[in-house]
């Protein structure tokens, strides 16, 4: 769906935005964040091959912590941040470090305090990325309060994970907290109109740069 120039520019933009988000997370947990070089794709979920391992997050079974932030109106969609539950627990424990009375290191279950922290972390991270898209497009985005869910995803559930969203901007970037195994994935589902707006803005920028 993207030509080479568009993919290059979008990767560059996302690289910066995810870098900022990772920097924010780094500030929250006071640990270095290792970023993989992002691969950015604009795909239709219905066209994705479930056997493609890059899309395991959509098609593999398991317990997930999922946070989502819905945004609109001119640029409309929903951004997701997903962690396996046990990694979400590690992240919450790291964030709660100073408030040690709240942390029970050997307890694998997420408590209300963990969920509160994870919601706040997700809010900061997703705002960092989506807000910069708003700044890039020079439009005002309205946010709906972020949702958090603990879900057990079965194969049959996968097809409805991102229901009602036709196209998905997949940021294959995963961030890795130094000295831990916490990795997460960010997925942004966009409406067709929003994709058109984004492509139009990128094309205008590319035309200005390359004539």
């Amino acid at each position, binding site marked *: 769906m993207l030509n080479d120039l568009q993919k290059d520019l979008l990767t560059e933009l996302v690289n910066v935005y995810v870098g900022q988000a990772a920097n924010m997370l780094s500030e929250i947990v006071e640990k270095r964040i290792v970023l993989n070089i992002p691969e950015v794709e604009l795909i239709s979920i219905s066209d994705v091959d479930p056997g493609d391992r890059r899309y395991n997050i959509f098609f593999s079974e398991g317990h997930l912590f999922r946070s989502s932030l819905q945004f609109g109106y001119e640029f409309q969609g929903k951004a997701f941040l997903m962690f396996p539950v046990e990694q979400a627990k590690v992240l919450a424990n790291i964030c709660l470090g100073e408030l040690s009375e709240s942390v029970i290191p050997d307890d694998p279950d997420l408590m209300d305090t963990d969920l509160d*922290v994870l919601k706040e972390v997700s809010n900061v991270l997703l705002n*960092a990325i989506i807000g910069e898209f708003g700044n890039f497009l020079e439009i005002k985005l309205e946010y709906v*309060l972020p949702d958090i869910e603990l879900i057990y995803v079965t194969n049959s559930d996968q097809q409805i994970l991102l229901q009602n969203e036709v196209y998905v901007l997949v940021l294959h970037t995963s961030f890795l907290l130094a000295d831990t195994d916490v990795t997460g994935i960010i997925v942004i589902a966009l409406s067709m109109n929003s994709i058109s707006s984004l492509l139009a803005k990128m094309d205008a920028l590319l035309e200005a740069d390359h004539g």
Partner: protein
Amino acid sequence: MKVLIVEDSIFVQKLLTKLIVDHIPACEIQVANNGEQGYNLFTEFQPDLITTDLLMPGLNGQEMLRKIRETNRHVKIIILSADIQKTTKEEVELLGISGFLNKPLTAEKATTMIELIQAACHAE
């Protein structure tokens, strides 16, 4: 000095409360979980300064700010929000705020927050 913290995250409430108490022990602090509680506490508690999030359930921070400014132009207000959009910052600045900080509350921003509170305190 009386400070009202309006914030839906208990984690951030605790961080802010600890920060303020550690630096300005004489501060009297009250906490609200959303804009509606925040507005009610504003009328009862009559704080000198309010720190508020923007995206909150029910009445959000901007709506609370507008309601407060309808009757009070003087109370100092500092925004602490994850929203990094320039348009958001411009909108709330029109309503008269003393500062806008983006989350997360790093050590550097915590220092700025304390300086803003102290400046507001001395401006009285």
